[in-house]
């Protein structure tokens, strides 16, 4: 008997939201036992969530741009037609190729795609083995490449079950009122017959191999849960308003039935393995089962995948696996490296995934090689003759069409080929979007648009370009793309209001965005719309309303970690720190590696005076994504400083020099910012200025300005130039400072009436006429700065009164020197102040 065996079981679309209640009710005992004796967690899916590409990532550890499986169908090598995706699309070695090379034996059952079967050491029962004919009364012939080795065909061919063999005894457990189904108008029962028979064929082959063969690695894939969900999730409780009551009553147990049957099959497999075998059960994505269920499927490529949820399941159990622990941060691409590590084999450095070390009781550090693809030797890959053979399969193609993953093929093959090529290129672009390779994604999308193929709806490409533009902060471009979609004749019902609101928000026009969303809410009261409204209310400082709306959003979608984090952020502003901490913790419970939630938890705990735990939370937040979330690093530094301070709590202005800090002088125009810049300059701090704005009568000693500041809201990438220097930034632009740096902000205060008068004078207007609206706008800006500084851990702010600069100069200089933490020439600073320039008084 072999030791160290590993059985990998794929349950397409399995979702914890359905599983946990069934476990509580005692209806999935086999899975419950595995969880109790092992580890479990969420499995994060990839973009786009199309199963063949996801399951290929599972066994290669690579993203689809590297492994080459990019959709449900592919163009044949001779470019004469299209067919369901095959192993020939895969351009990298899978686990079983590597095991073959290393003398290990693998069994593979139903993996998608695994046809044509590769000639590995072991047995391959490919995904085509189980496919049934669209006419339920017919048997499907078995293709030569469906099984390896082919001489085993007689052992397996009679294990295939066909839909015509399904009886009422098989149907009633899923549909207790099967006799009430109007089979002329509802194809539910024939769908169940097909799904159950095909999955039974897979299970039969798997149990036979488990009973009779010797193996090291075995992988079995079931599509039962996914196919039940696509057909019957709409009838799953709670009842959706648009669903017919009778159909709901008839089919409401179908989805849970598929999970229970899958668990029964699992129980059998567990009976057939020994205690030394490690078992992994996982899904490639989850499935929407709440208010977000889609009843009116849009006409887009692979539309049913829109029902897929981001998180699938992961369970592992075995002799060297931890017991009853939850594990976090798992991705599909981590499975292959983890399995290689289990067998003591090195991981290819070209793999995108990592070893999930957290699941093992004891383990060695992972070993690496450059790439398994460049290793020489026998990897049991298909030869060119097999690759060029016709592998078309009418039944599988028809099933993909029936499920809605593939459109009915155009009778003209050249049209089908063209559509497939476009879809695959679009998928590739989306894969790059998922990897944040935006420039490559953009290039593919623009190429697709420029190809100007007839009858091709370009809206999906523009929608992706909108997402990319928003990420890249190219808001004008996003708006242009949106206008193109708005004026197009696309038949796809996009939520363009949501896109428009997002663009307006990013462009700094939150009120307009809010107006659009409030109208949208009247007919689309979805969690997503409510969440966006709540975020906008928060942005506008309407915290109580933000809280109420976000609570409604959470009622609709309680599993959204971002929703819980958003409400925690609001509660911090309402000084409800304990509740904020609770929401942040819930958010972390849902997604452990969510830096913002840890950051918010840290903020709440810091306010509650629990500095030790606040430090842990900030540490976690800064570890997860240090580059993308620099605020956490600054908060961590702040809290450590507080802990080191023997006097205990002090406010943020603790006056410590921070390495590479940027000293910003800010305020409203004409509030004394130029004199403060001059003081810093003479005191010894370098100034970042281009001196493009020359001294004039209003400012005879110079403005100390830097032109790029004027477009800070569009581009703040240059801010690194200001490290260890001083820079002048007007108050409204402060919020565009890049949070990755540390800022010491000297904010000049001056009586607003004096400021406005001085400005009126400067632009040649009557200084005695005070525009009220301007007065109010300035007051609002000052309030916003006050709120903003509290949210930015990298910011320390010192208010300096302009009158104090003139009348208590020494005091101000001491304050400024202490605040910056820089040793400066105080006398030189004092000499900068020229009272004769104080000409405008209130």
């Amino acid at each position, binding site marked *: 008997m072999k030791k160290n065996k590993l059985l990998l079981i794929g349950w397409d679309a399995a979702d914890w939201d359905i599983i946990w209640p069934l476990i509580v009710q005692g*209806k999935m*005992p086999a899975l419950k036992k595995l969880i109790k004796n092992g580890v479990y967690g969420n499995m994060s899916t990839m973009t786009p969530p199309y199963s063949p590409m996801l399951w290929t990532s599972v066994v290669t550890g690579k993203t689809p741009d590297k492994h080459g499986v990019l959709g449900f169908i592919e163009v044949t090598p001779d470019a004469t037609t299209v067919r369901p995706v095959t192993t020939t699309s895969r351009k990298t070695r899978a686990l079983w190729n590597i095991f073959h090379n290393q003398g290990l034996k693998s069994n593979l059952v139903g993996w998608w795609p695994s046809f044509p079967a590769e000639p590995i050491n072991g047995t391959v029962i490919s995904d085509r083995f189980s496919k049934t004919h669209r006419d339920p009364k017919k048997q499907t012939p078995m293709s030569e490449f469906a099984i390896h080795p082919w001489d085993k065909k007689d052992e397996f061919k*009679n*294990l295939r*079950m066909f839909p015509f063999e399904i*009886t*009422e*005894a*098989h149907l009633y*457990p*899923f549909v*207790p009122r099967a006799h009430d189904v109007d089979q002329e108008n509802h194809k539910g029962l024939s769908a169940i017959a097909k799904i*159950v028979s095909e999955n*039974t064929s897979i*299970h*039969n*082959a*798997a*149990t*036979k191999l*488990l*009973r009779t063969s010797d193996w090291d690695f075995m992988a079995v894939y079931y599509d039962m849960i996914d196919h039940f969900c696509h057909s019957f999730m709409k009838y799953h409780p709670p009842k959706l308003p648009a669903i017919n009551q009778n159909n709901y009553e008839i089919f409401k*147990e179908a989805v*849970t*039935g598929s999970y*229970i*049957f899958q*668990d*029964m*099959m699992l*129980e*059998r*497999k567990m*009976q*057939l393995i020994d205690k030394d075998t490690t078992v992994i059960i996982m899904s490639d994505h989850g499935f929407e089962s709440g208010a977000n269920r889609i009843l009116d499927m849009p006409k887009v490529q692979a539309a049913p995948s829109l029902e897929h949820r981001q998180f699938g399941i992961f369970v592992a159990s075995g002799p060297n696996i931890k017991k009853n622990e939850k594990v976090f941060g798992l991705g599909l691409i981590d499975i292959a490296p983890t399995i290689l590590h289990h067998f003591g084999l090195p991981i290819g450095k070209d793999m995108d995934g990592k070893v999930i070390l957290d699941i093992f009781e004891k383990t060695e550090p992972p070993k690496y090689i450059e790439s398994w693809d460049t290793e020489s030797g026998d990897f049991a890959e298909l030869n060119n003759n097999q690759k060029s053979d016709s592998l078309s399969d009418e039944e599988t193609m028809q099933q993909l069409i029936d499920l809605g993953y593939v459109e009915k093929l155009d009778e003209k093959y050249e049209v089908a080929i063209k559509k497939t090529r476009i879809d695959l290129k679009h998928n590739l672009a989306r894969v790059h979007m998922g990897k944040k390779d935006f420039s490559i994604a953009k290039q593919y999308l623009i190429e697709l648009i420029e190809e100007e193929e007839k009858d091709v709806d370009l809206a999906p490409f523009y929608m992706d370009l909108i997402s990319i533009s928003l990420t890249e902060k190219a808001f004008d471009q996003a708006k242009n793309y949106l206008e193109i979609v708005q004026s197009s004749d696309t038949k796809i019902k996009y939520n363009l209001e949501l896109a428009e609101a997002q663009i307006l928000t990013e462009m700094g026009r939150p009120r307009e965005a809010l107006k659009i969303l409030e109208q949208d809410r009247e007919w689309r009261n979805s969690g997503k719309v409510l969440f966006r409204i709540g975020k906008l209310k928060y942005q506008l400082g309407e915290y109580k309303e933000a809280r109420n709306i976000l609570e409604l959003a959470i009622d609709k979608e309680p599993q959204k970690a971002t929703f819980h984090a958003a409400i925690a952020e609001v509660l911090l502003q309402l000084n409800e720190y304990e509740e904020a901490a609770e929401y942040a913790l819930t958010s972390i419970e849902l997604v452990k590696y969510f830096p913002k939630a840890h950051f918010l938890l840290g903020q709440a705990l810091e306010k509650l005076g629990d500095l030790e735990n606040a430090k842990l939370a900030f540490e976690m937040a800064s570890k997860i994504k240090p580059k993308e979330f620099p605020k956490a690093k600054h908060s961590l530094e702040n809290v450590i400083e507080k802990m080191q301070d023997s006097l205990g709590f002090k406010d943020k202005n603790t006056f410590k020099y921070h390495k590479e800090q940027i000293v910003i002088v800010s305020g409203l125009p004409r509030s004394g910012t130029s004199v403060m810049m001059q003081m810093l300059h003479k005191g010894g701090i370098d100034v970042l200025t281009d001196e493009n704005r020359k001294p004039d009568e209003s400012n005879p000693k110079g403005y100390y300005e830097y032109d790029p500041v004027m477009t800070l809201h569009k581009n703040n990438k240059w801010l690194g130039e200001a490290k260890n220097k001083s820079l002048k930034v007007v108050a409204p632009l402060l919020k565009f400072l890049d949070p990755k740096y540390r800022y010491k902000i000297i904010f000049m205060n001056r009586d607003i009436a004096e400021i406005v008068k001085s400005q009126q004078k400067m632009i040649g207007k009557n200084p005695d006429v005070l525009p009220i609206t301007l007065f109010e706008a300035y007051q609002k800006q000052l309030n916003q700065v006050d709120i903003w500084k509290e949210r930015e851990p990298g910011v320390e702010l010192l208010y300096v009164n302009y009158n104090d600069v003139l009348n208590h100069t020494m005091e101000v200089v001491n304050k400024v020197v202490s605040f910056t933490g820089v040793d400066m020439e105080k006398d030189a600073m004092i000499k900068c102040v020229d009272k004769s320039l104080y000409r405008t008084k209130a």
Partner: protein
Amino acid sequence: MVKKKVLKEHFNPDNLPVLGSLGILALGDIGFEAWRKVKEKKNRSEIDEKK
């Protein structure tokens, strides 16, 4: 609703219901082949009766 049964204790290849059950299918190849035999036996006996 699909109900779980303790497969091992109830499985007797010579005494399976002709209509089958999910429990038998969950047993995998052994259950499936045994059930097919029961069906074939019944079919044969029906044909014999007609003769």
